[in-house]
């Protein structure tokens, strides 16, 4: 526990798998009310890939993502992010990890209403008191199509625009992994498409790694890889073929 993140990173050999989870189990509650959300999941995510996690309600997909992102702790098992074992980290170290290595996009856009679009995008850097790389920020804002909305507050933006701000915010630190939790859950189809294409572009153009939980087949079809969970087990792991194929897959799971 005394070693810093930096030391630990160096002690591990670099590999193409940026997130590695082994034997993940997670139970909620005790006794009669006990729910086993994950019952032993092994999964790894490679760099520069776009993975969708699907599954019916209660399959454990959200729990899996929360644990992978260090927002929740597994009952058993380990998670390594960029070579760092995170399950044993304390709150301060997890905070630092989230700040430096992770990006988040939530279903509810979760912007700060008191800040402008650009300030919201720069928020993770401001929190870390780091100077933004202007070129990168401008490129990002331009790429998410909000160049003329920089000084607008969230209340002056549409839902799609707000979520694009959230994507830009998640990318501004060039994180090791970007986690997206139902990012299109609250959007119309046009805006959903914009957001999904942005996430795709993040992988293709900016070499980012994206892990997305979704229940929308269209969304899942944008990914390089589709993982499906059912009753806490990993039941499918393959590249997605088409939205229709995804629908078929979901039917078999339900």
């Amino acid at each position, binding site marked *: 526990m005394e070693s810093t993140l930096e030391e630990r990173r160096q002690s591990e050999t670099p590999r193409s798998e940026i997130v590695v989870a082994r034997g993940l189990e997670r139970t909620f509650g005790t006794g009669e009310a006990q729910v086993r959300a994950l019952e032993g999941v092994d999964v790894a995510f490679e760099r520069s890939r776009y993975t969708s996690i699907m599954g019916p309600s209660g399959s454990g997909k959200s729990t899996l993502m929360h644990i992978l992102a260090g927002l929740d702790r597994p009952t058993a098992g380990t998670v390594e992010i960029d070579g760092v074992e995170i399950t044993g980290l304390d709150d301060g170290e997890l905070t630092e990890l*989230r700040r430096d290595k992770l990006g988040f996009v939530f279903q509810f856009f979760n912007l700060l209403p008191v800040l402008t679009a650009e300030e919201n995008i720069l928020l*993770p850097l401001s929190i870390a008191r780091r100077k933004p790389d202007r070129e990168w920020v401008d490129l990002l804002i331009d790429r998410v199509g909000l160049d003329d909305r920089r000084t607008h507050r969230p209340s002056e933006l549409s839902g799609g625009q707000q979520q694009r701000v959230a994507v830009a915010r998640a990318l501004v630190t060039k994180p090791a992994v970007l986690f997206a939790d139902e990012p299109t859950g609250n959007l119309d189809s046009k805006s959903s498409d914009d957001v999904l294409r942005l996430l795709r572009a993040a992988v293709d153009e900016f070499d980012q790694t994206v892990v997305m939980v979704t229940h929308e087949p269209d969304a899942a079809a944008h990914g390089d890889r589709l993982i499906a969970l059912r009753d806490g087990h990993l039941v499918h792991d393959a590249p997605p073929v088409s939205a229709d194929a995804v629908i078929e897959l979901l039917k078999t799971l339900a």
Partner: protein
Amino acid sequence: MLSLTFKNLWARKWRSIMTAIAVVFGIALVAGTYVLTDTTTQAFDEIFVKSNEGTDVAITARSEVDQEDGSTPSFSASYLKRVKRVDGVELAAGTVFSPGAILDRERDSTGGGFSPQFISSTLPERLESLDYVEGTVPAGPGQASLDKAAAERSDLGLGDVVTLVGTGKAEPFKLVGLTELGGASFGGTSIAQVTLPIAQRLTGKQGEFDQISVAAESGVSPEQLRDRISEVLPDDLRVETGTENAERNADDIREGLSFLTIALLAFAAIALFVGSFVIFNVFSITVAHRTREFGMLRTLGSSRNQILRTVLLESFIIGLVASVVGILVGLGLAQGLSAILAAVGAELPANALVVLPRTIIVSFLIGIGITMIASLIPAIRSTRVPPIAALSETVAAGGTSRVLLRGIVSAVLAVVGLALIAVVLIGGLSGGSAALKMGAGAVCVLVAISIFSPQLVRPAASAVGAPLERVGGLIGRLARENSQRNPSRTAVTAAALMIGLALVSFVTVFASGLSSSVDKVIEQNFVGELVIQNSGGFLDFPPKAVEAAGEVEGVEAASGQRYATALLDGKGTSISSIEPSTVAEVVTFDWNEGSDQSMTALQDDQVIISEGVADSQGAGAGDRISITSQKGESKEFEVTAVIAPGTLGLTGDLVVTQDTIGRFFGVDLDSSGLVKVADGADVDQVQQKIEDALKGPFPTVDVLNQQELKDSQQEQINTLLAMIYVLLALAVVVSLVGIVVTLILSIYERTRELGMLRAVGMSRRQIRRMVRYEAVITAVLGAIAGLVIGVIFAFLLGIPLEGDGFTLSYPVPVLVVILILTAVAGVIAAIYPARKASRLDILEAISYE
């Protein structure tokens, strides 16, 4: 609906508890005040009833005008013979009961600082109310008894020496008896008894009595005897039955205590006023949070009235619980207050705590009333929630801001308030109605500012937040933005604090003005170098002390002064005395008519008057005015000079000679003696010599130089100030509770946002800092507003006092310290909310809707 109300309250129990706390403090002070004063009153009732046991008829002198020290005139002992001759008198005896000093072996006081001490004479056993629980009744010279409580306080026993000081030199006595008054408590008061001739000599009342006590023969009722006796006595003597006498004395005490009651209740009112802001805020926010719930109830068929009733019922229950807790805390507070009073030397007599039904009823009425009135507007707002709100995603921001309405209401209130204040400022400050108008005016202005303040929060918070943004960067920025997000909420929270701090800064500025004015008067008007004063707690001292000081080597002149209250045109007017032969050496004044020379030339039938008296009487030098003494005798005095305003009570409104005040106005003791040191003599050495000379015969006096005099005045002001601070602290604490609640509620609203901030890398520390900054911004907003208003009020009130020599001074460093302390208090208020915010479970927070 009832069970729903209880469930709602329970579901939000901490919020309900915090709301209740906002009222508990005020109620506790209300209940505590009543319990304290009722307990004291009852103890005094007991004292007076017991001290009249065995006395069927009591004869005392009437007092035409109340003296500040509560003393009554004595009367000639020759009346005793007349009384004895009245048919039906079994036994009659005269007695002396006079303020004096009772000192222990170390010549320290046997009582607290402000607790009176009395020298009294023994009575025949039938009339004597004191029980001798140890030893014997003093029977001759050199013997004295003391009340047992005082003896125990000073660790005195039979055979020990006590020193009694009346109007002459201190005299030692052997303690031969210890007394009790049937188990009644005297508080810090001590009573010593000696035989009648000695008591008369000690108190300078040779040939006089303070009271004649009469026992009736069997078969003669006290009333019959009273009527018979009053026929043979002049009108200036009051003849009462023992019971009547006890009741009258008790009433006097009650009247005296009513000041304490009113003062304490005023502080309770302030705390409750502040508390009502907190309640208003909590209910406003809660109603906003429950918008969807109310909408749902409306869709299910609840009427507006039912919604109104649920919310009001909740506030009723909170008020009820707060009152119960407040009364219980009040019982403890009564003891606390009494301990504070005892600590400053004014221990009140007390037996068991007295809780009258009135105390309970008033506490409940106020507690429930304030809570319900404060929640009325939010409750009405809750009825405006349309059924569709049940379906809406967003939680209403709460607090619709109708700028125009706010503007008009606050303008009207401000005008009314300022008008009330102006009336007082122009019309003069005397009288209770002036204080009431002033208070009402201040309340109007404060409420006006509170109502309008949401409009001021945005710019003000930007200004206050600017330094925090510089220091804290993003964190400071977010804190500032958060404080501006819901201006009316921040405004109400800050306004609650503003009220407390306005009063704090008002009394601070005023007290500072008072002490610098006192300093100025001492510097400008007091030519002498030294002052002889009573040492802490003793009211006045024998004039022989000043005489003795005048004979000390190196003293050019020593001049005594006395103070009393006389009647002028039926109004109590302060009167003081000077010693014409020496006064010019020790003081100097500005004169409208006459000069310092007028003091030297003052004759026994002449008077110097203040500008105020000159104006009200239309009198000037050469005119004659009639002044009435406490005994009711009137006499014409020739006005020889008019003193210019600005002596700040160094003289009374009327100034006569020492002889006159002693003979005609019956004031035997000096209040102070001013000393002029001879040219070339060393002041410190002379001071030491005077001290040495006075120590033995006059142990109750101190000799102070000018600086020490200033310090002692300063100390008195500070003691009073400290007590006011303690009482105002209640209101400030209530407003801090307001900050805590508001922060917690705001955090609850921003749960998801906080979760997001944590998710994108904000540390717990940063979250805590953000909450803390927000609290500091709110606190500093309230503090600055309060300080500004307090200073303005002090300035306004200072204007009419300027004529009396009062000049304001602004203790900037103290005000800055208050500002800093308030910011620190904000940080402390934020501890719990900040912890709560930083401990939010990120997962729950982001999935929270």
